[in-house]
């Protein structure tokens, strides 16, 4: 008996309102994302598209501080859902754009990719710092991320 196969889309979102995007303004709810996604599928693929993609469609993880979310769907509906994501423009009344950065078969794969991706972003920011003092403060802030402490710089 084969198991049910899913796909997980690792998506980064950005709130593009005119105001400064503070933490509260950039926060969106998983239920609103799911509703916007379903509306987009209905607009593009009709009733059939919604029916096919509904089973197993879930926003599995959402992080408003890093603005990353995981969307889970059945493997057969992966193309359908990923074609609807670029057409989402509004969530919770806010103007939002989504950018798919990875498609994984399991959450483990997505986690491994996300660790490498965010480490790369941190290394780029570390490399853009100009003085040793700035680098020390940066490393000190990273060490505060318990239980995960990230070591950057030449190893």
């Amino acid at each position, binding site marked *: 008996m084969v198991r049910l196969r899913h796909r997980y889309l690792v998506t980064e979102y950005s709130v593009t309102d005119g105001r400064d995007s503070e933490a509260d303004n950039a926060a969106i709810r998983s239920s609103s994302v799911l509703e916007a996604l379903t509306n987009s599928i209905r607009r593009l693929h009709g009733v059939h598209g919604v029916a096919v993609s509904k089973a197993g469609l879930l926003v599995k993880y959402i992080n408003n501080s890093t603005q990353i979310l995981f969307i889970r769907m059945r493997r057969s509906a992966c193309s359908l859902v990923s074609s609807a994501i*670029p057409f989402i423009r509004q969530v919770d009344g806010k103007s939002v754009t989504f*950018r*798919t*950065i990875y498609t994984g078969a399991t959450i483990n794969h997505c986690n491994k990719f996300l660790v490498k991706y965010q480490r790369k972003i941190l290394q780029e920011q570390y490399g853009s710092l100009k003085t040793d003092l700035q680098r020390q403060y940066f490393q000190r802030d990273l060490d505060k991320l318990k239980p995960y402490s990230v070591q950057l710089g030449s190893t």
Partner: protein
Amino acid sequence: MEKCIPPRSVFGKQCFGDLNIPTGPKCRHVCEAAIAVGYKLLALNTPVVATSCLPQKPGGGKKAKKRKLEEKTGGILSATAAQTGQDGVPPPKRQDWIADLMEKHKDVRILQRLTVIFYDINHLQTVLSQENVALYEIIAVVPTNHEALVSCVISSLVFDVISFDIEGPHWINKVKLNRQKGKVAAEKDVHFEITYSPSFHGDEPLENMVYIADRLKEDICTRKIKNIIISSGASAPDEIRSPQNVLGIGYLLGFDETTTRICIREHVERIVKKGDSRKFGKSWVAFTPTEQKEKVVE
């Protein structure tokens, strides 16, 4: 005379490109957003209407009065002429931020593109023979009716891209070409363009975009798609989509993943190389003999 800068990274790694970023107030932000999501080849688009770039006959008369009236009221057809203050194709806008962006991102190239909107092939011929056209790296045409589309495919005029205005007043209504004409276009290395960002603005542009893609795939292009490109046409930074999201849009247009990837990578590079060869290829090489010592053979 403008300094010719040779193209860089011609033999480098293949990269994604977006050849339709309209010049506007947010052009710089759109370019920065495109670079952030992974595009390396960008083209700033200057659209012109062919009838407004035709050389005006000297003297007064009804046409001159009509033109002055249009310039006063700011009519659509004379918008380009009013901006430049002269007839003919305007030269590309050189802005400081372009050089700054290319300096900051060494592997990014920002080109200039001219788009000519026309309904009569004779107007297009007159416009393309003007001097300022040679200053642009990429030349695109937008036919506004079926006869213009057929005549520009068959003609011997030199341009790179045939595009369609899916949102605005220049929509073609019907795209009807057969496989033979599509083959002629492929042999001339002329590409058809599909833009996706106007489809975010309503149902009608979305329907037009899918219609164009379906016609190109079923009627015009061969089974192996050789000459279709997908570009954004984004006038705001939030309308740019990353290459991975464009793969999803390609599914909507009826293309598989491999074809969509080729449409935003290989075909774009081919257009850029064709434009470069048109701009820089006209050169001559001189061979001068070096001094040779006579060898005495004993």
